[in-house]
């Protein structure tokens, strides 16, 4: 600095000299500097634009991939649902159609019996009365011959009539009773027919409702196959919902696993020792954790073998016989582990009592060592939890599968958003660099305002002179 101000005996003059020299130099290289600034700004602009386009292309590719993944997942889920619906229909049809011949026979037999009973129950025409012959005899009788006997004949007729009436009434009552009996016999058949037809009606209704459901699913499936936007948005939103719900359930499961861990970690020290360490962790804690993880793994395999989840296609593709064997094996291991846990939970309670008694003894509080009357409740509760929690953890497989599947979509969506933001930022930077170039040029010109002003004046003067010369030439 001293050197700069020491080029003349007067520092102010030196400073002015430097300013003039620098301004002159800057003015001389102004065009070159402007071009350089502009080139740099354009270069940056172009680079940022290219980067932005590349990121946009990546975003588009990722969106397409995400779309494919989502559609594939949706297609698979729909196929599974439709498959299950068909299975149910198959089951209903198999059950009902298998019994159809027996049903038909039962209905035919019932109808036959009803027909027979009906025929038998037809009203029998009464026999002609016995007194008809007597009337005919009286009619044929000569008026003279028979007059004396008419009174007795009529009396006989009257008697016969009464007798015949009684007999007819008795017969009629007997026939009516028989008919009623037959009609009573028909009643269970009617009911059976009604019940059978009702069952058939229910089956048919079930089939119809299932067919409606299948229709709906098929329509959605077709939309997915066609890759329609509506299907995409539905799948996307359902995937997000699945993600959050499964994450929530997994958090609950983690809470359960933590409680399970605290139940067995302490008594595990009885088995593997309380002081040995693996890394910075107690071996007992790691052993407890391993037991819980093995239980969860067994639960996953069990769910896979039951074909409830499809995380491991190898298990799903196993022959049915092997799969059933696997179900038994995994369930047995799970049962044994649950029993071990129940035992450990019991051991924990025993250790806790022992520790409390020792602490009380060391405190000199002997009265506190007495065991409570209801302590068995906590012991039983702990044992119950130790036994139940492993089985409850089996069901983690379901939200885990949903979480894994929806995670792909969610991660894809997040990545797309991030790429979109990056692309936007790069585009902004591209524009910014362009304006920055203009700003830098203006800033460059700022200290050169004196020579620029002179230049402008000179150029105006020169232009005026040229105009005047031109006018003079024309004149």
């Amino acid at each position, binding site marked *: 600095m001293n050197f700069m101000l020491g080029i003349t005996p007067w520092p102010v003059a030196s400073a002015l000299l430097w300013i003039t020299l620098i301004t002159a130099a800057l003015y001389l290289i102004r065009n070159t500097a402007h071009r350089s600034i502009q080139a740099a700004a354009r270069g940056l602009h172009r680079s940022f634009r290219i980067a932005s386009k590349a990121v946009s292309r990546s975003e588009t590719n990722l969106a397409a991939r995400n779309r494919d993944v989502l559609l594939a997942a949706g297609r698979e889920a729909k196929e599974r649902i439709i498959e299950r619906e068909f299975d149910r229909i198959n089951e209903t049809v198999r059950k009902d159609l298998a019994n159809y011949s027996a049903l038909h026979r039962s209905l035919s037999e019932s109808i036959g019996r009803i027909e027979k009973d009906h025929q038998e129950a037809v009203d029998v025409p009464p026999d002609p009365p016995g007194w008809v012959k007597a009337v005919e005899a009286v009619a044929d009788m000569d008026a003279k011959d028979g007059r004396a006997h008419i009174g007795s004949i009529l009396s006989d007729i009257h008697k016969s009539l009464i007798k015949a009436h009684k007999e007819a009434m008795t017969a009629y009552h007997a026939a009516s009773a028989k008919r009623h009996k037959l009609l009573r016999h028909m009643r269970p058949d009617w009911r059976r027919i009604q019940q059978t037809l009702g069952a058939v009606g229910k089956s048919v209704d079930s089939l119809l409702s299932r067919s409606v459901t299948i229709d709906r699913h098929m329509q959605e499936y077709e939309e997915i196959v066609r890759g329609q936007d509506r299907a995409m948005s539905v799948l996307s939103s359902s995937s997000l919902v699945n993600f959050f719900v499964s994450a929530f359930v997994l958090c609950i499961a983690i809470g359960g696993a933590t409680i399970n861990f605290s139940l067995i970690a*302490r008594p595990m*020290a*009885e088995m593997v*020792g*309380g*002081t*040995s*360490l*693996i*890394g910075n962790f107690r071996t007992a804690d790691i052993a407890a954790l391993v037991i819980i993880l093995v239980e969860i793994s067994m639960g996953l395999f069990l769910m896979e073998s039951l074909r409830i989840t499809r995380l491991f296609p190898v298990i799903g593709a196993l022959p049915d016989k092997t799969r059933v064997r696997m179900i038994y094996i995994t369930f047995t291991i799970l049962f044994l582990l649950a029993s071990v846990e129940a035992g450990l939970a019991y051991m924990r309670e*025993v*250790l806790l009592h*022992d*520790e409390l*008694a*020792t*602490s009380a*003894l*060391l*405190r*000199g509080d002997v009265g506190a060592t007495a065991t409570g009357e209801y302590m068995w409740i906590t012991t039983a509760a702990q044992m119950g939890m130790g036994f139940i929690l492993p089985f409850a953890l089996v069901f983690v497989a379901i939200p885990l599968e949903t979480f894994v599947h929806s995670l792909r979509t969610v991660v894809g969506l997040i990545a797309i958003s991030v790429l979109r933001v990056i692309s936007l930022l790069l585009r902004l930077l591209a524009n910014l660099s362009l304006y920055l170039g203009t700003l830098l040029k203006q800033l460059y010109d700022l200290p050169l305002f004196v020579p620029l002003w002179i230049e402008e004046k000179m150029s105006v003067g020169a232009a005026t002179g040229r105009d005047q010369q031109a006018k003079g030439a024309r004149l």
Partner: protein
Amino acid sequence: MKHGILLTLCLILASCGNDAAGPRNTGVYMLLDTSGTYNQELIKAEQIIRFTLSRLDASDSFAVARIDTGSFSEKDIIAKTSFDDRPSAINRQKREFAQQVSAFVETATPAQYTDITGGLLQAVEFLNEKGTGTKTILIFSDLKEDLEEGYLRDIDVPLEGFDVIALNVTKLRSDNIDPREYLSRLEEWQGRVEKTGGQWRVINDLDGLEGLL
């Protein structure tokens, strides 16, 4: 190939073991002064022992020894134990230890002389043999050493890595007359301990034992 991977995993796990970090267990050796009137303070010592027992855990070591005429002897150890790995065994050991100490407190007779240095040497020997990570020596005494004629104790006790804590350092009648005696006694012991690399502390308030271990 698979065996190789398995072996590598085992080696990694083994290398993660606690051996590299050294032992993390605690060793405590407590010296009980049974000389003269201090013998009456043993009830308080029993409380401290019980407190110490409640603080110790698996694989820790604990020994209680009396200070008498010649304390550099295993015979003066009243009770000693190294706690098991299993929690159930630890509780049993603690109860047995407490019973042994109680029995001693009930039947303890006053000693004629006070060989604190011999007891310290015995404590150092015991704890070094156990090889515990932390080594603590508790001295329950008025710190007034009174050696029988012929006993040589003007030797430096190697206390590098040891915490020496003096508990319940009561004032003698002579200390009341001239408190400088008490202070110089404390200073002398502090100097002896710190000279050979040990850490020195005094706890007279037995209600504040939380920082003991």
